[in-house]
């Protein structure tokens, strides 16, 4: 792309062109060491800042800064064993809903920008609106969990680390069956952290 000065009105474009040109011109005033040194730390600052900003969005505090989550999904979580339990281990929103592997996490964060749009237009900004969307929202989460073999469940729970002999009779047998049939957690454990929507077990589309 060639940029030409065409008069005073074109000055901003000229500055951009000069900056662009300078960016690619070998430095004459700084040593390679300085450039590498500064670039290294600038990179750390940039990368750290990016991840810091992303991690801020990856906290329960951030999730429930929206009343939609605070008053609904979070309020329901507080009533379940994933919030308060004998051993004092708590699952927060991102533990179940944000992947831990970095690249999946970034993809999820990009997808989450769609939630900003719905926040702005108020898709679930009232209890009745939330209820009307609850089934579709839940199905979406279940589908993604099933597709990843319940990856986020397995951050804490794995079949390998379960001592099924210590489980109650039905759990022991159902987990054995799940192993044999290749089932994944979410196929049985829907509604463990939130209310089950009406019609949750009917075929989608009904």
């Amino acid at each position: 792309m060639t940029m030409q000065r065409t008069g005073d009105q074109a000055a901003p474009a000229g500055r951009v062109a000069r900056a662009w040109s300078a960016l690619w011109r070998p430095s004459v005033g700084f040593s390679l060491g300085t450039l590498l040194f500064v670039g290294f730390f600038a990179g750390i600052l940039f990368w750290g800042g990016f991840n810091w900003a992303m991690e801020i969005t990856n906290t329960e505090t951030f999730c429930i800064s929206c009343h939609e989550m605070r008053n609904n999904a979070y309020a329901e979580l507080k009533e379940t064993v994933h919030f308060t339990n004998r051993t004092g281990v708590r699952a927060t929103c991102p533990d179940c809903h944000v992947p831990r592997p970095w690249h999946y996490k970034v993809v999820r964060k990009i997808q989450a920008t769609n939630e900003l749009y719905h926040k702005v237009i108020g898709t679930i900004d009232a209890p009745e609106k939330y209820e009307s969307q609850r089934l579709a929202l839940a199905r979406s989460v279940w589908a993604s969990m099933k597709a990843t073999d319940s990856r986020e469940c397995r951050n804490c729970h794995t079949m390998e680390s379960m001592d099924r002999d210590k489980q109650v009779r039905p759990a022991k047998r159902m987990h054995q069956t799940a192993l044999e049939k290749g089932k994944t957690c979410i196929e049985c454990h829907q509604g463990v952290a939130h209310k089950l929507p009406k019609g949750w077990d009917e075929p989608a589309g009904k």
Partner: protein
Amino acid sequence: MRYLLVGIALAASGGQALAAEPASVDWGKIPQKPVTLFYPGESTYDWIIGKGHRGARSVLQGKSCVSCHEADEKDIGEKVVKGGGVEPTPIAGKNGVIDLTVQAAHDAEYLYFRFQWKSNLNREGRMHDYMRFDGKTWKWYGHDRNDKVVRSGAQPPLYEDRFSIMLDDGKVPMFAKQGCWLTCHNGMRDTRNQVVGDPVKKHPIFGETGLKESDIRKYLASSRTDAAASWDKTKSRAEIDKIRKEGGFLDLMQWRVARSAAIRMADDGYVLEYRRFDPGKNPFSWNVDRKTMTPLYMFDAAKVGRKALKAEDIGNAALPAAIIREGNAVAYDANAGWQEGDILPGRLLSRVDAKGSAADNNAVDGTWKDSTYTLVWARKLDTGHPDDDKIMKVGGTYTVAFAVHDDNVTTRFHHVSFPFSLGIGVDADIKATTLK
């Protein structure tokens, strides 16, 4: 062949309409569905949703029993029957499970069932509500195994065996998932807080101004106002009537080895705010004035060879166990020379007198041989009584659950199934085969 049998049955039935012969179905060609019936103890609804049940939250969320308990019947039954937990008063020697085989078929008008199961008792459980002459008066003789006079050994266990079918068409909330646990509640007979007498008699729905009952029997959680579905927290009469009109009741039919089998019938009832019999006249009634304990009928000696039974006759399959008004009965004669030890049935059966919706199950035949019951049953798809029966259609899918009362027990001391889908000619857990 079927029509020939129908003709014979019509002749034998005193002219009462009998349009189907379940025995004429070629059952050898109908697929068998194995069902494990298990002993539930006192797993009443409030227990199911309470802290004692680890799956309570799932139940309240609307999950099915089998979502946790698939193929768990044997383990549950054998654990509960031993006592402890939900069985505070176990019965010694009782079995935890009963293996039931279910077959179903249909034509344009009827649904046919065939059931087979082994009984724990080495005779047919056809004695029930018997009266014994003690030399002066008639007194009740024999009870169910949970009764204190039987537990103490003072009287023999004498109670009829039964086979029960619950049927729903999808109008009872949660029945397809949670089955008969929706009907079994704390406060009912033989539960830990059973309610009898005044509290019931003073209740506006059940008492003197209502159903005139003195105890609590099966009811649906949907007929109550509180989460635990307490016996006394009923919806109003108008609300209950509205639920019934909209079909939110369960059909409950029981083949009773003492009270209906001998006249080829089963009773017909429904469950909503209480377990009630359908309108009309039941196959059975009392054979005694219960205020004076005076029998109404005795055996016709000309037909039976004796006017009464003796204790040693119990279990003698050659002798009748039931008094049938139009079959083997004559009016009771107080001066017939009664002797201490004479026994008469306290119930009177009549196929001829049975009327209306209560008499819909009029083609039900059961046999007991080598400790195995075989029961065949014809039920009209459309009985014509939609206010208390589930009306079925060819191509429809319904929910059924089964129970057996085995070996002199009543109330909760039975074996039950989880609910199953039943397809009338369509795929389901139990598919009724279409008869050509």
